[in-house]
């Protein structure tokens, strides 16, 4: 008997399926022949037609009337078909929604992943649906009969299969790369999780243990759910933050459509034509709004969901409004959490992933106006429907009974009860009037305060979201920087070509300081402080660096010694790259800054020993060098006094000594002679010459042109961040100008 029914219904079903396949395949050939240049447009039209068929089927009437019938139909308990068929039908019904969404969006989002989803997921699912269409139908509508729903399902599967076939054939050459398998598999699984209908957990876990009711859950269970709710968007955020905006929108849209369909999964078209059944609760409305926002990108609507819905969802999750005597996997409970989860984090994710910019005051203002409109709407609907509740109205070939509503909970004591007696007393202040024999009641003070407080808190939580976004941004920035460091290391390894990381990047260059297209930009400035600087200084040279204040001298020096990072280009010290071999490069440098910077509570000797320790100077070397310098700079009497007791010049001397204690190959001095007495200036100059004579580099900046002229072998002049010239002193002499005139001619050019 059953087989006969199956056969008859199945035969009819397949007629619809095959007809759809034939029509769409025919269309494909026609379009290829006549409209090959409009392929994308036709694909989009086909997708929209498919979406229409899918939605008509999705919202068509189900013959499930009672709760027990509902449970029998969806649960793995048996019901009127066996457990295996129930399982097959239910799983196919679930994954077919995901497959359909992939198919609908495919022509609108043309990138690899969307192609792969259709080719490797939707095609397989629709092929399986062709086989399992019968159990699927019985699960969807709760009976074996071939109804309008059945016919539509046949058309849907046929159309879907035909489209998949088309995409499969046109995308034959676009193979998935091996390393993308896990990504596609994981994301497809995740997306299926989003499209899960609210009865699926119930289907798998059944009635379970009779004690597992909502009221059995402890605060720790609730905390676990909250952690889960935060972990989910975080996972999504970390997976998508490197993706491009189109890809981000694609994934969020799939999730939004999937969860919205899951939300409407238990009803049919009749729910959509009864205004009192429409999703006017703030978080239910959010489901629909998020889809609209992601499809059509209306900014103001988005910020409405951002300011108003998110906060509503948080409150709702803190105060769930379902019956606590329900089972924990009851569709209502699952429905509640899935719905509010999306309303809570979807708008936040849109902003965190930069699909929408961070809101400004203007957007809050528009959201508040929108909220006022929404509030007035639900206020009117609640008042009218409550007045007319129980009245039967006839339209669209059906009798409908008007139900009293409590949209946004402004028409009941649900929220007031949680706030205490004072709130309930406010609620009880009512104004009632009669119209057409029906009593219309409003709660003016309660409802006004409700609106005002909600608007203000909506404003307040703005800053809370901002805090989280700042954390997310700083983490992302950290991630990018660390990736940059890793890439630098890889570049270093490859340029060393198998040599040890301790060896200089540039081989056999000896003592050398080289700037290669060096540029520096500070913070978020949109201009370079130094741009494309190139310079090469060899061992044995005393090199002078001249330029007016703010020209970029200190910027270059600070980048060489490692006080600040390099924006572009490279700096090499004795062949070591300052960017990627910083420690090795620095061990070749001795630095005298423009402002002495010392630990004033140490004695001069303690400080010098501290620096010598850092450079690992042996006991013999440090004794010899320190004794020499102490004598040279006449610090014998004060070297064991605390630095804070020193004069400016003495502090500068300590700084110079600390830069020389390790005999650096490159000695860099930034305005070193400021504050020194004439004897010390002479000693420093002598020391510079002596140091260069040993084959080392002395690189120094100064405004004292006379000294530079007498001391330097070569000179560079920098102006407004650009090196103007690098010349030898002889070359300047040949021009017949003094260095001062030469300098002024360059600077005033």
């Amino acid at each position: 008997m059953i087989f006969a029914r199956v056969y008859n219904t199945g035969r009819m079903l397949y007629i619809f399926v095959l007809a759809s396949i034939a029509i769409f395949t025919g269309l494909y050939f026609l379009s290829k022949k006549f409209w090959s240049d409009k392929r994308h447009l036709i694909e989009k039209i086909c997708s929209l037609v498919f979406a229409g068929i899918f939605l008509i089927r999705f919202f068509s009437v189900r013959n499930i009337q009672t709760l027990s019938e509902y449970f029998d139909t969806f649960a793995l308990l048996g019901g009127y078909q066996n457990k295996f068929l129930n399982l097959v039908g239910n799983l196919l019904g679930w994954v077919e929604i995901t497959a359909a969404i992939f198919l609908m969006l495919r022509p609108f989002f043309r990138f690899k992943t969307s192609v792969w989803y259709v080719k490797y997921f939707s095609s397989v699912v629709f092929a399986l649906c062709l086989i399992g269409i019968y159990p699927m139908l019985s699960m969807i509508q709760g009976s074996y009969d071939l109804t309008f729903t059945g016919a539509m399902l046949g058309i849907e599967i046929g159309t879907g299969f035909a489209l998949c076939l088309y995409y499969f054939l046109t995308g034959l050459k676009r193979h998935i790369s091996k390393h993308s398998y896990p990504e596609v598999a994981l994301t497809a699984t995740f997306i299926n999780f989003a499209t899960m209908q609210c009865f699926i957990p119930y289907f798998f876990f059944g009635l379970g243990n009779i004690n597992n009711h909502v009221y059995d859950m402890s605060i720790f269970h609730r905390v676990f759910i909250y952690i889960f709710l935060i972990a989910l968007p975080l996972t999504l955020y970390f997976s998508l933050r490197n993706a491009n905006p189109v890809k981000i929108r694609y994934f969020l849209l799939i999730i939004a459509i999937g969860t919205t369909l899951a939300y409407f999964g238990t009803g049919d078209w009749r729910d959509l034509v009864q205004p009192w059944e429409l999703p006017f609760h703030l978080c239910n409305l959010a489901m629909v709004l998020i889809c609209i926002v992601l499809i059509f990108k209306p900014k103001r609507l988005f910020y409405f969901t951002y300011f108003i819905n998110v906060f509503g969802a948080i409150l709702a999750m803190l105060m769930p409004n379902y019956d606590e005597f329900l089972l924990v996997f009851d569709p209502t409970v699952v429905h509640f959490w899935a719905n509010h989860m999306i309303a809570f984090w979807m708008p936040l994710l849109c902003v965190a992933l930069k699909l929408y910019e961070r809101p400004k005051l203007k957007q809050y203002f528009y959201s508040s106006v929108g909220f006022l409109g929404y509030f007035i709407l639900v206020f009117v609907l609640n008042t009218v429907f409550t007045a007319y509740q129980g009245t039967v109205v006839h339209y669209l070939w059906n009798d409908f009974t008007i139900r009293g509503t409590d949209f946004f909970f402004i028409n009941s004591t649900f929220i007031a009860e949680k706030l205490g007696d004072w709130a309930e007393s406010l609620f009880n202040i009512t104004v009632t009037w009669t119209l057409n024999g029906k009593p219309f009641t409003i709660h003016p003070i309660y409802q006004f305060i409700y609106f005002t407080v909600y608007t203000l808190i909506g404003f307040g939580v703005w800053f809370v979201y901002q805090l989280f976004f700042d954390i997310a941004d700083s983490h992302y920035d950290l991630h990018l920087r660390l990736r940059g460091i890793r890439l630098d290391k890889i570049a270093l390894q490859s340029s060393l070509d198998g040599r040890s990381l301790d060896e200089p990047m540039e081989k056999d260059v000896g003592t050398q300081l080289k700037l290669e297209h060096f540029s520096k930009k500070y913070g978020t400035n949109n201009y370079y402080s130094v741009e494309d600087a190139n310079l090469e200084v060899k061992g044995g040279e005393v090199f002078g660096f001249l330029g007016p204040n703010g020209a970029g001298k200190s910027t270059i020096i600070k980048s060489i010694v490692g006080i600040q990072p390099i924006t572009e280009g490279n700096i090499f010290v004795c062949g070591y790259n300052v960017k990627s071999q910083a420690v090795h490069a620095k061990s070749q440098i001795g630095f005298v800054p423009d402002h002495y910077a010392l630990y004033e509570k140490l004695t001069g000797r303690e400080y010098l020993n501290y620096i010598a320790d850092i450079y690992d100077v042996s006991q013999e070397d440090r004794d010899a060098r320190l004794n020499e310098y102490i004598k040279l700079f006449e610090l014998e009497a004060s070297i064991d006094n605390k630095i804070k007791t020193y004069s400016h010049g003495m502090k500068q001397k300590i700084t110079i000594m600390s830069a020389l204690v390790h005999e650096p190959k490159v000695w860099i001095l930034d305005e070193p002679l400021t504050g020194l007495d004439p004897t010390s200036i002479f000693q420093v100059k002598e020391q510079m010459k002596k140091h260069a004579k040993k084959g080392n580099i002395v690189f120094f900046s100064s405004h004292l042109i006379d000294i530079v002229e007498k001391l330097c072998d070569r000179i560079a002049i920098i102006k407004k961040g650009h090196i103007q010239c690098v010349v030898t002193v002889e070359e300047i002499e040949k021009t017949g100008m003094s260095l001062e005139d030469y300098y002024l001619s360059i600077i005033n050019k």
Partner: protein
Amino acid sequence: MGKIKAFFKKMNPLVRFQLSDKFDFSWVKSKKTLIQQVVFFVIKFGLTIGFVAIALWLLSILGIINKAEMVDLYVLFFTLIMVLLLLSDTHNLMLSLYYADDNKLLVTFPVTSTDLFFSKIVVYFISDFVKNCSLLIPVTFGFAIGGIMLGQVSFGVLFWLLIPLILANGVIVLIGSLLSVPYLYIYRLFKTVPILELLIFLAISVLFVIGVIMAIQLIPEDIDLVNQWPSMRQTAQNFIAQICEYVFPFTFVVRSMFGKHGASYLGYRLLGSCFIDAAILLGIFVAFIAICYFVIKPFFFYMMTKSFEFEKNIVDQPKPNKKHRKYLTFVNKELILNIRDIDISGTFLLVYILAPVLLFFMNKVFSAISTRLDGEIMTYAFNIMLIVLPYLASNSVIATLYSKEGRAAYMKKTKPISLIFPLSSKIFFYFGLSIISIVGCGFVFADYASNAGIGALVPILLTISVIFIQFAHMYYSVTLDIMNPQNEVYATVGENNNNPNENKSTLVALIASALVAFVSFGLMRETHLSDGNFNIAFIKLLVISIIAAIASFSLFVLKVKAYYYEK
């Protein structure tokens, strides 16, 4: 009149100059940050007021306090705050008047030392007022609103009480400036003979410990809060009334703020005499200005410039050069600096000595109270909070460690060494000291828990957990300093009264301590119900704290790698 006008004309740029150095007003420029700051301030202010008002109302409803003694309770609070304010003002004014780095610049301006002195006082008073906006003023309003709710105080008080309060604050600042003179001499003496400071510090610590032990002996053997409450309340009432008599100057100010108690009516009323009291207060304020003018003016300039000078020791025998291992040298340097800078290490020592002593005292009180299981678990959770809070709160100093080095910190970047070690070595000294103190707290906790038959495992696990939590928060605090360095402020001004890193570190310390106590309470309750002991709860706490420590240290390492050279 013309002279006064000229005086104020001179003061205006001086005050503005110093204020812009002391406060960061950059948030005023952006509409968004301005709104953000205002909203946060209003919320914080409102919440404090609401909290105090509701707490008072509840305490009164529950019969814990008598609503008629509410104003006396405020006198107690006001006295405590004013005494603390006087101590901190004296210290800070001494630093600000005679040791601030900007003095070197200010003395070169064409103004008299009187102008300079009063500009500093005005700037200090403004910064004091800003600070008071976060506690004293909202709490005072909270008391007023609580009083109004209880029908004890008249509504008009809200519009009046700020005037006497500001005047009183002004008087305290002026007294602080007077006391800063003798304090300066003591400070300099301590700087010259550091051992003296250490000895006095130790003597105070010993006296404190003796005081605590004496107080412990006063605790009765068995406290039954419910039954003994009426007599205890009476004792407390008498005690507060007596205190109010002793601290009559403060009682006088409070009466002029809230009004007078009358025989013919309930509560306090703002009478004409309150305004006369306020006028007297104004007179006292003006008198102190005059005293400051005549007492400090003659030698303000001398003392201010004196702090620029240092006496040198003539060293006959040069000391030898000493080589340390490359990494050990940082620890060595920090040790020397900390020992020589008693200011910072003293603060830490104080916290680290006081924490176990106070815990011991509190546990003696807890031991005397008879509790049920939940109450007992609550005392353990409270114990944990008392252990964690002081250490974490003291870490606010850690959040300024690198910045306080001023420009010397930049030089670290030029050295050929991985920076994690030199940066970490700055906190080794404090971390080492805190471990000793935490272990001390662990012993105190073990002693208390042994009364309930809890073995050694739980205190050991708790001690290790707290060490990890302290480690996590220390690294969190130094990371704050790395991400938002204040070196230039310290290098130019020498101080930063509103360091955002310090504030953030303290806020996180408060939240973290409460969270640790709350989580411990939940875990203890849960495991006691299932296992009958707390072992698993403390193992879980240890795991959480290890995760926190690893996360905090990893973030520190990563952020140093990614940002240190740029900041």
